[in-house]
């Protein structure tokens, strides 16, 4: 015997799954299914799932520019450290540190340019001279600690042929730090 409620549920089931040509569900779980299908139809869910990647594909039309070379950040850091060390005329080891960091910068930049030849022949913009910190020696120590950390962290994600170069830069910075110790 049919109750009015059965009639409504049959109508809902027919509407939501008729495209699949499946018989309307008549199980105990049907009660749960009916509650869900009243708010979100299966067709709508399937459509949304199918359309989502399509929408992503349409919006991401232009290929994103390649991520910046991790070595170019290390090169910039080396140039900044060299600048900082040059300003420290009172510390005897500063000249040595400035020279070493310049060497690091040029080696790293050479590798960056080798892998991705620069579009124009302009040299990378020199970092703007930061205001001289109150304690330049402490700032240089911190900068070298930071350089060891950054270079070491970068090594893990590099291809093997670059890992040696960046590993030596990390060890070189640790050596410079030891000079200041």
């Amino acid at each position, binding site marked *: 015997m049919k109750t009015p409620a059965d009639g409504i549920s049959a109508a809902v089931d027919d509407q939501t799954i008729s495209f699949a040509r499946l018989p309307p569900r008549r199980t105990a779980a049907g009660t749960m299914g009916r509650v869900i299908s009243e708010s979100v139809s299966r067709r709508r869910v399937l459509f949304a799932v199918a359309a989502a990647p399509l929408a992503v594909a349409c919006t991401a039309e232009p290929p994103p520019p390649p991520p910046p070379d991790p070595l170019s950040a290390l090169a910039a850091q080396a140039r900044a450290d060299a600048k900082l060390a040059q300003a420290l005329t009172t510390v005897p*080891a500063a000249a*040595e*540190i400035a*020279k*070493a960091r310049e*060497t*690091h910068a040029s*080696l790293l930049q050479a590798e960056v340019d080798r892998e991705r030849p620069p579009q124009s022949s302009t040299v990378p913009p020199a970092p703007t001279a930061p205001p001289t910190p109150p304690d330049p020696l402490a700032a240089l120590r911190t900068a070298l600690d930071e350089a*060891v950390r950054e270079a*070491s962290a970068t*090594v*893990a994600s590099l*291809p*093997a*042929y670059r*890992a*040696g170069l960046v*590993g*030596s*830069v*990390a*060890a*070189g910075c*640790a*050596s*410079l*730090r*030891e*000079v200041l110790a």
Partner: protein
Amino acid sequence: MSVESVQTALGTEHAALWTYGMVSAFLNDKAVAEGSNLHRARRDTTERWLRDHGTTPNPPAAAYLPPAPVSDGPSALAALVAVEQDTCAAWRGVLERTDDSALRTSALEALTTAAVRATRWRKAAGSAPASITMPGVASG
């Protein structure tokens, strides 16, 4: 490929350990014992790594030849600098030949600590510059 480079690194660790033992006759420095212990630990982990990768670790040589004869404090310091720089070169070689992240981390640590010790010995010897710009590179 990385196994051969690790064997080379093990060879420099054997040489370093031997050199630290030899210079202790000329340098009464706490840092000598410390460096010796660190190289022994590195040698042990390197041998373990090789065994774990199905290779028999190369044994140490009976003796090693420092680049210059060691007869006093300054020449002992020079031998320590030389052996630490060899260690740097060997571990940089490992870095360039492996994609194994654990081995890479360990090689980087070995390279960095050897560079710091080499700098310390150069400082003790009064060399200028004391720092090594690119440890592990022949011209560095």
